């Protein structure tokens, strides 16, 4: 008789994931059983403490030493890059949640038709959708699992666990609800479409290798010859799914719409956390599973990187909406990061490129949360003032706020003395060392174009006269204020003294991805 042996699970290594998912489940129970007036008071400590606890466990794990083999029977790889990405995502998620925690970003009753009496009543009764906390926790849990997954099935499940709550969160904005609902629908339909591509790619690679384990796919590359059709089609479809999630051209169309329509704190979470998670997963698939095929995929990745940088930088110039402009800027940054993905080579070169990408992701994530936090504070009668013309002369009315925003924009542009400079420098340097000089030239030109539209906003804020009925700057809550303060501080410190975090990224990348 066959006996079933229990799988060996390294609970300590997986503890950050388990804590975040556990807190998500507890959050659902709070929604089910706690009275309405108590829910918020219970969610806030639960959410923030679980993220802080998970972060502490990541640090404990880092100090104890990086595991050298995948855990949970090879399903999840908790290696150096994973730990760095986990730490980054948890910090970004923590500060996004402080932003999300602010009142009046979310609709009082999502099921009520906009403008109906039902909605009016919910507003007067002061209802809040406290479901956003568990939803955000599940999304964050998915973000943690996505870059750590060591087989394609876990990766697919993580992709969905990350995306499904985000689709819902996008549709919950309190104001401009038509835009918000539209963005949720677009994100959902396109996201589901792209994950179907990811899954079909997984199926074909399973057919090729007989396993969905990344390491086994990698070993099958040398063993199975003559089935190239399956392999290449599978890898291409998988790539489509992953490139969609990072918003690389030509799969970038969802990004401006979703970033604009979603509640701004959710946009901040997506612009930072999702991008970091998706890049981690992309690197793992392309470097571990089909890393031996780099001769075949890197020309395509070159094209995608160039197209992404150019599309992001040029279309951003034409934008008149601040959130759309930041979305296109995020597309351009995805392109700059792809330059690092192409810089694959021997182990030493890979470690340099990986460290550069990790550092870039961390600094870009923090700066973009800071920028979106400022967007939440500039308000019109109908909500946040998104149109760029409304931002004219903001520097004369509230110089501190406009100064901070200008600083974040300069960090995006990669001006020296901001963290963005070292991020970009590290990635481009790694790409030059990897022999992608032409790509770096395109990257530098795209950065210059991007710098143009960042500076244009700064000029608009400081050298134009404010409109008489201009937007008001709301006094930030302690949450928003601390988010902006932390982001600005991190951007300065990492711009002047980046060495500790660079060292951390280098030591995380030194061990590369475990197989």
């Amino acid at each position, binding site marked *: 008789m066959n006996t079933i042996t229990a799988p060996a699970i390294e609970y300590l290594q997986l503890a950050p994931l388990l804590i975040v998912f556990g807190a998500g489940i507890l959050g659902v129970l709070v929604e089910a059983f706690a009275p309405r007036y108590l829910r918020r008071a219970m969610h806030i400590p639960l959410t923030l403490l679980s993220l802080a606890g998970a972060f502490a466990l990541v640090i404990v794990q880092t100090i104890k030493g990086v595991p050298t083999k995948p855990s949970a029977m090879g399903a999840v790889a908790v290696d150096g890059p994973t730990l760095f990405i986990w730490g980054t995502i948890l910090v970004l998620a923590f500060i996004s949640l402080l932003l999300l925690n602010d009142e009046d970003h979310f609709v009082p009753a*999502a*099921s009520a*038709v*906009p403008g109906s009496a039902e909605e009016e009543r919910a507003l007067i009764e002061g209802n809040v959708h406290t479901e956003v906390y568990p939803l955000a926790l599940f999304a964050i849990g998915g973000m943690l699992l996505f870059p750590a997954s060591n087989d394609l*099935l876990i990766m*697919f*499940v993580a992709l*969905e666990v990350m995306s*499904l709550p985000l*689709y*819902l969160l996008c*549709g919950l904005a309190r104001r401009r*609800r*038509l*835009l918000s*609902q*539209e*963005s*949720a*629908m*677009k994100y*959902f*339909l396109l996201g*589901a*479409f792209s994950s*179907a591509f990811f*899954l*079909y790619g*997984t*199926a*074909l690679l*399973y*057919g090729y290798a*007989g*396993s*969905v384990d990344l390491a086994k796919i990698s070993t099958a590359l040398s063993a199975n010859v003559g089935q190239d059709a399956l392999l290449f089609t599978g890898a291409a479809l998988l790539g489509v799914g992953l490139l969609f999630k990072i918003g690389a051209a030509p799969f970038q169309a969802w990004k*401006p*719409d979703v970033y*604009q*329509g979603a509640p701004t704190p959710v946009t901040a979470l997506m612009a930072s956390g999702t991008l970091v998670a998706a890049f981690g997963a992309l690197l793992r698939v392309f470097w571990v599973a089909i890393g031996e095929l780099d001769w075949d995929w890197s020309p395509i990745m070159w094209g995608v990187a160039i197209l992404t940088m150019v599309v992001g930088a040029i279309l951003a110039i*034409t934008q008149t909406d601040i959130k759309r402009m930041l979305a296109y800027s995020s597309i351009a940054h995805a392109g700059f990061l792809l330059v690092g993905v192409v810089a694959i080579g021997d182990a030493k070169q890979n470690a340099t490129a990986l460290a550069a990408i990790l550092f870039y992701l961390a600094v870009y994530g923090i700066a973009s949360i800071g920028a979106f936090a400022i967007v939440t504070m500039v308000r019109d009668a109908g909500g946040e003032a998104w149109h760029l013309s409304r931002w004219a002369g903001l520097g004369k009315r509230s110089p501190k706020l406009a100064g901070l925003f200008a600083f974040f924009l300069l960090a995006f542009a990669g001006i020296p003395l901001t963290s963005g400079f070292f991020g970009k420098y590290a990635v481009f340097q790694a790409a030059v060392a990897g022999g992608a000089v032409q790509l770096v030239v395109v990257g530098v030109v795209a950065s210059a174009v991007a710098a143009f539209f960042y500076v244009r906003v700064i000029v608009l804020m400081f050298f134009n006269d404010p409109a008489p009925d201009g937007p008001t700057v709301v006094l930030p809550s302690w949450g928003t204020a601390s988010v902006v303060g932390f982001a600005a501080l991190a951007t300065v410190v990492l711009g002047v003294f980046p060495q500790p975090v660079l060292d951390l990224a280098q030591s995380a990348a030194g061990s590369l991805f475990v197989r």
Partner: protein
Amino acid sequence: MTTHYLILSALLFAIGGIGVLIRRNAIVVFMCVELMLNACNLAFVTFARQHGNIEGQVIAFFVMIVAAAEVVVGLAIIVTIFRTRRSASVDDASLLKY
């Protein structure tokens, strides 16, 4: 022969993909996505048979669960937008552009 099943799976996937691109009703678009996921399932079980291991069959179960979860979220979003706009057409929802 497993080849026939693979061809059927590829056909279903293509029909689903084309449906997503040309159909206008959000519900139908979504059903086309589900068709694509089912095409993936067919491919998984076929390859499981071909390789003689059980992994692909197990994956098919996971995919079904994920598809079910996707239905819950997707229908919630589509129904909300239908209640607001009295239309489930993906062309009507066009406030966000350029």
